[in-house]
């Protein structure tokens, strides 16, 4: 199966990029591609339940809907551990099947042949 990573480094600081990242991730997951969204830097906020409720960029579906449809299509969400910890976020408030991870898991995925788009 083809593999793809979508790296998202923004949240409310750039709602446009955060949204487009999940639009692309949805396209990949809905195409039968094994897809992992890697959230790092400010992007880790997107892993928290309720955070995306008010994010709705013109021309796109609300971000919360995008995340829900992505997860429903077996999309994976990985969160950068040090980025997550330094912002004091809560592990018991993660959306869906989100995994906290570090760089090694991302490196393994990418060197195994996954393509990557970054937002």
């Amino acid at each position, binding site marked *: 199966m083809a593999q793809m990573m979508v790296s998202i480094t923004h949240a409310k600081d750039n709602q446009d990029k955060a949204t487009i990242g999940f639009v692309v991730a949805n396209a990949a997951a809905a195409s039968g591609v094994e897809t992992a969204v890697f959230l790092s830097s400010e992007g880790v906020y997107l892993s928290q339940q309720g955070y995306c409720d008010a994010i709705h960029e013109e021309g796109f579906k609300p971000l919360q809907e995008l995340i829900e449809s992505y997860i429903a299509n077996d999309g994976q969400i*990985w969160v*950068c*551990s*040090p980025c*997550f*910890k330094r912002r004091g976020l809560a*592990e018991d408030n993660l959306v869906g099947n989100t*995994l*906290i*991870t*570090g*760089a*090694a*898991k991302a*490196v*393994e995925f990418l*060197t195994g042949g996954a393509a990557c788009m970054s937002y």
Partner: protein
Amino acid sequence: MPDVLPSVDMTLDVGHEGCGTLLVLLRKQMNELAPGAVLEVIGYDPGAREDWPAWCRMTRNTLLLTTGDLRLSGPVHYFIRKGG
């Protein structure tokens, strides 16, 4: 904790280090061990739960066992056998 733990040749307590910094520490320590030796790593980084299995697969080392508190705050013990 399981009843039987692997015999350990070296223990490394990495505290709250994580991600790339931790992997550099891990590689340095593994370089000091002979093939087949077992390193016990004690750490608190929640990312290591996903990261170290991946690192072991990439570096041809074997993650023998993971024990401990798998919550965000608890210490976790990883037993890694150095590959040949």
